[in-house]
């Protein structure tokens, strides 16, 4: 009979032996290529630096137009977000991100990118459960943890500062 020798042990149970999993992980690690560290680092540094330099130029321009330091900074943030949003809509920011990695993720333009990309992606599912509901799927955690951290810090300072 065919089923005579079949045992009830599942394959998962067999492979759950930690030895086998560890040994396999070693085989995988041996074969895994490394990311191109130097190229990625250079690209992140130069693109990130360039975006910040662009923002600085905008701050300087607003200051020359007579805005206060605070307002010039705020106006620049708005401008950078607009730029990030627009480049996302035009389908340019994803290519930039592929080239620059953290260089285009970490600046505020990257924050705009994740919001706009999520919103755009869900356009076809409608404007309530699509665009609006999904807009913060990736950027939401930033606000949640940012606000929690800052509020905690402020409370600590209020009581013990």
């Amino acid at each position, binding site marked *: 009979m065919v089923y005579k020798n079949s045992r009830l042990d599942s394959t998962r149970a067999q492979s759950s032996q930690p030895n086998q999993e560890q040994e396999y992980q070693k085989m995988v690690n041996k074969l895994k290529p490394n990311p191109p*560290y130097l190229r*990625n680092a250079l690209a*992140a*540094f130069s*693109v*990130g*630096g360039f*975006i*910040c*330099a662009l*923002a*600085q130029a*905008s*701050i300087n321009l607003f200051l020359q137009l007579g805005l206060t330091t605070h307002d010039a900074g705020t106006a*620049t*943030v*708005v401008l*950078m*977000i*607009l730029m990030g*949003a*627009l480049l996302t*809509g035009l*389908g340019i920011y994803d290519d930039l991100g592929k080239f*620059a*990695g*953290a*260089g285009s*993720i*970490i*600046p*505020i333009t990257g*924050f*705009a990118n*994740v*919001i*706009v*990309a999520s*919103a*755009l*992606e869900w*356009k076809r599912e409608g*404007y309530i459960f699509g665009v609006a509901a999904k*807009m913060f799927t*990736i*950027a939401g*955690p*930033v*606000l949640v*943890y*940012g*606000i929690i*951290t*800052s*509020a905690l*810090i*402020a*409370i600590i*300072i*209020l009581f013990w500062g």
Partner: protein
Amino acid sequence: MAFLIGGTICLIGQLIMDLTPFSVTPSHALVGFVVGGSILSALGLYQPLINMGGAGATIPLSGFGHALTQGAIEGVKTKGMIGALSGGIEATAVGVGAAIIFGYIITIFTPQG
């Protein structure tokens, strides 16, 4: 100077993403930078970076964390406990508002795939 400071902050982000064994996604990186910026700001270490690098320190997301923290601290000083809740959001309202509104408007485009 903005170029150097901003570039260096992004470089740190890239190294974290490339060197960690678990794949750190952009979401993780963004959250890490906001929280990191908040904490550095509370320790008084972020303002010197801004004095030095200007937009190089305010434009990376750590600058967003700094703005949140300074806003919350300011709120606590003027309004007490309520200020801890409102201060950070007030200080960053323009950025978040801009992101939501521009994000919504940009949906006139279609994703290209």
